[in-house]
């Protein structure tokens, strides 16, 4: 069965999604088969590309939206949402 899931989270990482936390997030995203996007305001990017994720310029407290489409969507969205809400470093 295919799932398409969406979740809005508040970014917890204290320096925002800068290079290091983006790398950790993307590394985790790449571990899932689903297609995953991350968006802030109107800008949506591939969550499996570090540089794309960095272009969002997301800061602590920003609202970002995860969209996950694929067989492991449920697992992926739980894991990735909790990473974004926590302190990625």
């Amino acid at each position: 069965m295919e799932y398409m899931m969406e979740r809005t989270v508040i970014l917890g990482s204290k320096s925002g999604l800068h290079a290091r936390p983006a790398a950790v997030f993307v590394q985790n995203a790449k571990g899932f088969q689903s297609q995953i996007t991350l968006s802030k305001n109107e800008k949506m990017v591939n969550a499996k590309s570090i540089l794309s994720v960095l272009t969002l310029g997301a800061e602590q407290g920003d609202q970002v939206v995860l969209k996950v489409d694929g067989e492991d969507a449920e697992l992926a969205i739980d894991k990735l949402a909790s990473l974004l809400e926590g302190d990625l470093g």
Partner: protein
Amino acid sequence: MAKIEVLAPLDGTVVDLESVPDEVFAQKMAGDGVAIDPSGRVAVAPVTGDLVKLFPGGHAFGISTGDGVELIVHIGLDTVELKGEGFENIATEGQVVQAGTPIVNFDRATVERRGKVMLSPVVSSGAGTIVRCASGTVRAGLDVLFVLEV
């Protein structure tokens, strides 16, 4: 298969990425590459492409090329915490840059006074595999740092 030469973005000495004291870079989570122990004051574009990301604080930038190649230059470790102190952006995010275009000026002494390690990872986070890599001393914008096969 195309080969893309990635120039050194910094003057300095090439250091193995695995020996960088930051597990995210050392474990290559951000991508394969090397680090440079910088001796100069300016960071330049390692390839021609779009400067898709230049942090306001100047501590890191990323360039993407038409071939899906993405390069990230991170000047010093944990330098996001300096919020721009010791860095001065020369280029503008979103502009097209030629290999060798100056992107950021930085001052090693200021960064080290704030307790940060100056080792600077240069990683390939997009398409391509590193097939050859420099060692020893490299010059910014002049010497090939590594070659990517895409």
